[in-house]
């Protein structure tokens, strides 16, 4: 660590981590990195996947013992490799640490520490309520079961836990990844209130706009090494990206396709409804077109893509593909109709982690490689090689289990698995969640190439940058209704935000 990288060091650090190193097998996950954190500071932590952020967080939480280094809170050294006292450092995990079968209060009090073995929920209730009210979390219901909460509410409960513990250091690991913008704002408000009360916060995020909006200083890791720590206001977005990936990112090079009105629609939806989540929706998609569906959580935008993929059972309304009406009631119906789907939860729904790459690639199209029910491995292998080439997957790793690949390569396998269907329409749910910037642009390029070959692509994303980067056309959805369906160049991020937060008419928001 160089002296330069520790410039702007606070006078009395609340958290001081120095010279942390960790080796996994032959790989240096962390190489003597450090971080100093002052009271009342929000500190951004950035880096691509594999930069060492999560190892760093695990070391702070005491889940991983570093090979060397030291950590102190308020000048007192921590015992490394043992669970850290949550009143010193509390971590809000990216994968929510919420137990769905427990009440919100129980969840908040979980792992609270303290010496008394007893736990009387009614005695701590008032105290927790007060603590939450103070930081603007007054609306969190304490007695409801966590399983009854929305994803966003669970995220807030997780933050509330950190608040209730009155931790000196609160570490937020991508707290906004699954949130809509209104909820992100709420998280930010709470973070700022906590900062003003003297808590030191670490904010880990992939979303650069958020880093700039919220943080006072930023630290960047790359390949397990500390790259920079600077005041946020001294940096530009380009500086930050360059620090993260080590080079300038070439982006936005793809020209958007201008939709010719006279082209026959590849996909035409009329009056599609899905329970209360989706009001009758009309939508058309031309061959070669990439459309991005945007909406807050709960707006029904994700329901739309899942319904088209056959995951929502039978839905009302008409769906026509290349002018032919189809009925979609199951995943297999959708596939037969020529629709392929890539889900948002890669590890849970997208790919078979413990199966080799080739088996994943052909998982949805086994029927094409079986003769009398027996698999024809040679034909399968050939197709696997083709798909690997199409998505730039190392053909030498076709036999490896997918779990051994990086996040970006796993997503390529998930995409390849869908592309194997040779679909007419490709539907993507969060196409690059948890994928680092490098692999992301590769995926965008591949998708564009597929579209140029005539494929129609419809994707749902909560990442506005992604929508503006990838979509030819943006479809904004508010409360189950299409607000606008318009070419990308015709609107900017602000207008999209307006659409998905307010809908067409501001007055709708007021009537609850």
């Amino acid at each position: 660590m160089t002296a330069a990288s520790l410039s702007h060091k606070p006078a009395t650090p609340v958290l001081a981590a120095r010279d942390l190193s960790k080796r996994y097998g032959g790989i240096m996950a962390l190489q003597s990195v450090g971080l100093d954190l002052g009271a009342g500071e929000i500190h951004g932590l950035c880096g691509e996947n594999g930069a060492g952020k999560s190892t760093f967080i695990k070391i702070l939480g005491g889940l991983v013992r570093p090979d060397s280094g030291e950590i102190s809170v308020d000048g007192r050294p921590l015992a490394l490799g043992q669970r850290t006292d949550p009143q010193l450092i509390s971590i809000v995990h990216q994968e929510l640490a919420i137990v769905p079968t427990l009440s919100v209060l129980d969840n908040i009090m979980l792992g609270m520490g303290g010496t008394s073995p007893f736990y009387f929920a009614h005695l701590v209730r008032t105290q927790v309520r007060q603590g939450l009210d103070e930081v603007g979390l007054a609306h969190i219901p304490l007695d409801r079961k966590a399983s009854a909460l929305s994803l966003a509410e669970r995220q807030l409960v997780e933050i509330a836990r950190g608040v209730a513990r009155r931790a000196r250091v609160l570490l937020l690991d991508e707290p906004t990844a699954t949130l809509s913008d209104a909820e992100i704002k709420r998280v930010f408000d709470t973070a700022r209130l906590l900062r003003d009360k003297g808590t030191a916060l670490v904010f880990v995020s992939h979303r650069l706009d958020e880093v700039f909006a919220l943080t006072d200083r930023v630290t960047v890791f790359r390949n397990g090494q500390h790259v920079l720590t600077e005041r946020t206001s001294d940096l530009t977005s380009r500086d930050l990206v360059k620090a993260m990936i080590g080079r300038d990112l070439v982006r936005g090079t793809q020209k958007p396709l201008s939709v010719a009105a006279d082209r026959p629609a590849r996909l035409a939806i009329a009056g599609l409804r899905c329970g209360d989540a989706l009001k009758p929706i009309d939508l058309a998609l031309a061959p070669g077109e990439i459309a991005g569906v945007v909406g807050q959580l709960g707006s029904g935008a994700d329901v739309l893509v899942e319904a088209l993929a056959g995951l929502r059972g039978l839905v009302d309304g008409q769906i026509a593909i290349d002018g032919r009406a189809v009925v979609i009631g199951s995943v297999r119906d959708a596939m037969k109709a020529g629709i392929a789907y890539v889900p948002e939860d890669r590890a849970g729904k997208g790919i078979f982690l413990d199966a080799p790459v080739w088996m994943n690639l052909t998982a949805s199209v086994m029927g094409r490689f079986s003769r009398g029910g027996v698999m024809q491995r040679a034909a399968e292998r050939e197709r696997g090689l083709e798909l690997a080439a199409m998505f730039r997957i190392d053909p030498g790793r076709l036999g490896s289990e997918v779990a051994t690949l990086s996040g970006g390569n796993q997503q390529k396998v998930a995409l390849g698995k869908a592309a194997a269907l040779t679909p007419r329409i490709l539907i993507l749910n969060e196409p690059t969640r948890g994928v680092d910037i490098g692999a992301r642009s590769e995926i965008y390029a591949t998708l564009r190439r597929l579209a140029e070959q005539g494929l129609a692509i419809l994707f749902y994303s909560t990442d506005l940058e992604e929508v503006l980067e990838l979509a030819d056309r943006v479809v904004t959805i508010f409360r189950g209704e299409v607000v606008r369906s318009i070419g990308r160049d015709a609107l900017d991020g602000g207008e999209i935000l307006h659409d998905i937060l307010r809908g067409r008419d501001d007055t709708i928001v007021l009537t609850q």
Partner: protein
Amino acid sequence: MAEAMAVKTTEGWVSERLRRMVATPHELHATSIRGGTLVLIIVAVLFVPHFAEFGNLQSIMYSLAAVGIGAVGMALVTLSGNLFMLSMGATAAFSTVVFASLISLGLLPTMLLVVAAGTLIGLIQGVLIGAADTNPIITTIAAASMITGFGVLWTGGITVVGHGQATWLGFGRVFGLIPNQILVMLIFAGIAGFVMQKTRLGREIRLIGMQRDVARVAGLRLIAATMFCYGFAGAAAALAGSLIASSSAQGNLTYGIDLDFNAIAAVLVGGVSIRGGRGRVGDAVVGAMFLSIIGNVLLVSGVSYEYQLVVKGAVVLASVIIGALLGQWAPRLRRRVGAAR
């Protein structure tokens, strides 16, 4: 590109094979049990008097056949991600009764009918578990008591004596050497192994067992696969019941009732992962073989019954522990083999 790949693969075939054998925890476990069985046989041949005698080897085969078939069926259920089928013992017992009642029709028609009945019993459970999404363990427990209940209703608990010839299955041998029973087991295991490794349905079953949600999104045939596994396991139990009933052409609701736990022990010892999707049918057969040989060695050495049970329990527990430990070493070993390559 593809040609270059092919060349590279041929060169790497041996090391790829080697890597495969230690690649995953269950593979490593299965490999060690195969080795363990071999070592056990060598030790027994050298040090246990009478072990290597032909008659004794035959008696091992006889004691293996029914359990081996049960283990194959159980392995399918385990591979499909549904843990264990606890109604196999009841199905086997019920099948001995059906077998004895029908044997006057001749051996082959009887076996076909018995297996068909077992398949039907399994299919019903498969429908409940696959289509109605019920818990597999509890469903099969409930099924077990109902199967036994109907069995008692039918027979009144009386031993059913068959009027027919079942000696081909009970005593027959190929060239006077290999019991027909063990041939039946090998053919059955071969069919199951082929289905699981080579066919589309088998691949689907393994993938569904591995990650059910992924399989759903990938459009695999969940219900059909689950039904197939349970139907097949029911058939296995019925076939095992036929083997048991054939030696005396009699059926009783207590015959073969312990098939469940013997088959589970074989699956566990053989190294089929109970998380589903990982492992082979053959592993379960090797597990059954290992247990049969251990049991035989203890019997032949005149070890008293109490100690036999202790040793069998210890073998299962030790195999579980070793399997799990291997699972933790496997990544390291894999790296090492990978590095060597």
